[in-house]
């Protein structure tokens, strides 16, 4: 399992973390169309490229953190 570098705890096994999802902005609820909202719910970049993700260091500092990871190689940008 890959290592993720937590800004608080340092390099740790990915098993200590929960993957939450690609980082994305929540649309303005008062204005979002069905199309926009469902895009927010379901569409993802899913590129074999550098991607900003939200992870939760569940078995560590309990912080939610942004991880920039290359989905093709699992490299993590420090």
């Amino acid at each position: 399992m890959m290592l993720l570098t937590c800004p608080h705890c340092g390099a740790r096994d990915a098993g200590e973390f929960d993957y939450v999802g690609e980082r994305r902005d929540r649309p303005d609820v008062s204005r979002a169309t069905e199309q926009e909202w469902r895009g927010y719910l379901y569409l993802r970049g899913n590129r074999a490229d550098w991607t900003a993700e939200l992870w939760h260091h569940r078995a560590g500092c309990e912080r939610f953190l942004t991880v920039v990871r290359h989905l093709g190689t699992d490299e993590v940008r420090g």
Partner: protein
Amino acid sequence: MAEPLRLTDCTALTKVLVRGGADGALAAGAPYGRARRDGSLLVGLLPDGWLVIAPPGSATDVVDRVDAGRDGGFITVVDVTHAYTLVRLTGAAAPSVLEKVCSIDVAEAATPDGAVFRSLLAGITASVVRDDEGGTRSYLLLCDRSYGQYLVDVLLDAGAEYDIGVHPH
């Protein structure tokens, strides 16, 4: 002769959790990942959370003391004595036992006396405080109370080859 391995139940110790005030006095006393003795044991448990471990029955005192030290920031103080099981693992073989259940490096260079970390221990989240006793390796292990019996069973099993003994507090 190497110190024999023993496991002591310390669950009865008072535990008070302080959340918030990451730039305050507590942070100065024990930054995240470090513990400091000062009568009670102040543990930098989370980036914005401290655990004060004190003698049994002293929760009110500890809460009052922390409250008195407030500097106006947003701080929450909660008595969590009952929320966690706390055991102490002492002896020369203590690192060998931890190496069976935990992926964190427990060598002197990586986690010296006073080091604190939170990680997976035998599949559950637990906090570890290295708190040597008179030069002998010693660790305080803290986990959710409902997992307490499980953790003790795991430690006894992993420590069996080192003749682990169970001691009352």
